[in-house]
């Protein structure tokens, strides 16, 4: 190397530039297809500002009388959904662990992948006519879709455990069931409970939207207030939802951190 020159890293940007270019072109085509023109984009801030100005002041009387009960119902839906999901997913998580049940695990993982592919709200569309309009349909939908994710996460936790205690129990003559009870469950329970809590946080958001298809909770209230252009009432829904979700996230996060310590 000649003195005075600096060693440049090789310019390896070839494929990255190409990928960026492809994405940019795809974006332009899609934006054009949905009529998102630069002019429309430029007009957005004005439109947003106009509508947002209708949101003030929030109608807190409506918030107390209608929104809080609906939010409470959303929390109830999320809780029952999480409990259903937790109960069904715990045995499935054990069965889905490659390290413990190599043959069944594949099948369990396939089931959980299918359950995860359904957005809750599509399940609710089917549950509403079966069990009737209302919160119970929502709780069932949330429960079933929780099973998918909780099984996957739980199986991953079980696969990551220290297999020493399992072997120890079996070497001492313990059955497979005893090994699960004394060697696996104590190791995985804190982490699995932390996943349940995390899923509860997600379920709060999921249950909030289920009202859109008539499955109870705060989503229906927001849809109606916006449909009839009662923006002050919609503002109350949004404010209270943000507040309640933040509080629950904080509580649940604090418990999760304690569990995983």
């Amino acid at each position, binding site marked *: 190397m000649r003195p005075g020159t600096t060693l440049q890293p090789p310019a390896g940007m070839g494929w990255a530039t190409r990928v960026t270019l492809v994405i940019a072109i795809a974006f332009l085509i899609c934006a054009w297809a949905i009529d998102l023109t630069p002019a429309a984009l430029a007009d957005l801030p004005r439109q947003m500002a106009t509508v*947002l100005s209708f949101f003030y002041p929030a109608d807190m009387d409506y918030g107390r009388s209608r929104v809080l009960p609906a939010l409470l119902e959303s929390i109830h839906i999320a809780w029952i959904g999480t409990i259903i999901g937790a109960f069904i997913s715990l045995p499935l998580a054990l069965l889905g662990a490659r390290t413990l049940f190599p043959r069944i695990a594949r099948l369990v993982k396939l089931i959980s992948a299918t359950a995860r*592919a359904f957005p809750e709200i599509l399940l609710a569309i089917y549950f509403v006519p079966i069990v009737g309009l209302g919160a119970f349909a929502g709780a069932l939908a949330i429960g079933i879709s929780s099973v998918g994710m909780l099984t996957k996460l739980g199986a991953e936790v079980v696969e990551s455990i220290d297999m020493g205690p399992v072997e120890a129990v079996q070497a001492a003559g313990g059955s497979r069931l005893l090994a699960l009870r004394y060697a696996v469950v104590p190791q995985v329970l804190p982490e699995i409970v932390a996943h349940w809590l995390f899923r509860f946080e997600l379920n709060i958001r999921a249950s909030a939207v289920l009202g859109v298809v008539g499955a109870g909770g705060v989503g229906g209230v927001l849809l109606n207030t916006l449909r009839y252009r009662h923006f002050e009432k919609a503002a109350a829904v949004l404010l209270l939802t*943000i507040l309640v*979700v933040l509080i629950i996230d904080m509580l649940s996060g604090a418990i999760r951190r304690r569990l995983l310590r």
Partner: protein
Amino acid sequence: MNDVFTRPPRPARNWALIIGAVTAVTLMTWWSGRGIGFSLTELACNLPGGSRLLVESWPPEFSYFPRLLAPLLETLQIAVVGTVIGGILAVPVAVLAARNLTPGFLVWFVDRNFMNILRTLPDLFWAMLFAAAVGFGPIAGALALTVFTIAVISKLWSESLEAINMGVPEAVRASGGSWLQMLQFGAIPQALPHYVSYALYAFELNVRASMILGLVGAGGIGMVLETQRSTFEYPRVTLIVLCVLVIVLIIEQVSESIRRRLI
């Protein structure tokens, strides 16, 4: 000699905590169960009609499929637009929320809380809001997904940015680089694979979300779903749900195989 056969002491248990937690969970479940009005009589009343609907919903009405192609395409377009705009806007939000890169405490604090508030509202709420603001249609959906994407990517990526090796950014600063140059040459390249991975993940979520945005009038296949659902055309509903499922699974597989190669 007896010592050899004594069992090790049982691990101490915090009984107060266990009993407290079990009681709390039981009470909450009981209260929630009452709150959602779980009643067997209602279930029994609805079951006959419901099961008839369920039976009717199979087989799906395949002849309806050609009418779904345009809405399905629109759905994917919404997802692409939302992911790209949101992915770009997420970069500054994530950088300012990373404790090691942010220019000042106040910026960090404001941005962090902004990020948290974005994350509290579910995607469909944003869709309803934007549908009210800019009118029903795919643009509302794309905007909702933009916000949702910012929320997802900025949260995850700010954590990756906080975990980078600070030696390189410090070296850039020490040799006279500006804050932006520090980001461009020192910080962002280190976390770039994570960014791509999270962007793909967000795209996956967005495809799934875009399928249902139409339920509140924000464009795509969901709008068809909503009309067919409200007129109880369940054979068509089933066809739509199947299409959504297939697309979501395909996108997931593709994105996961790309992500596995990245990291």
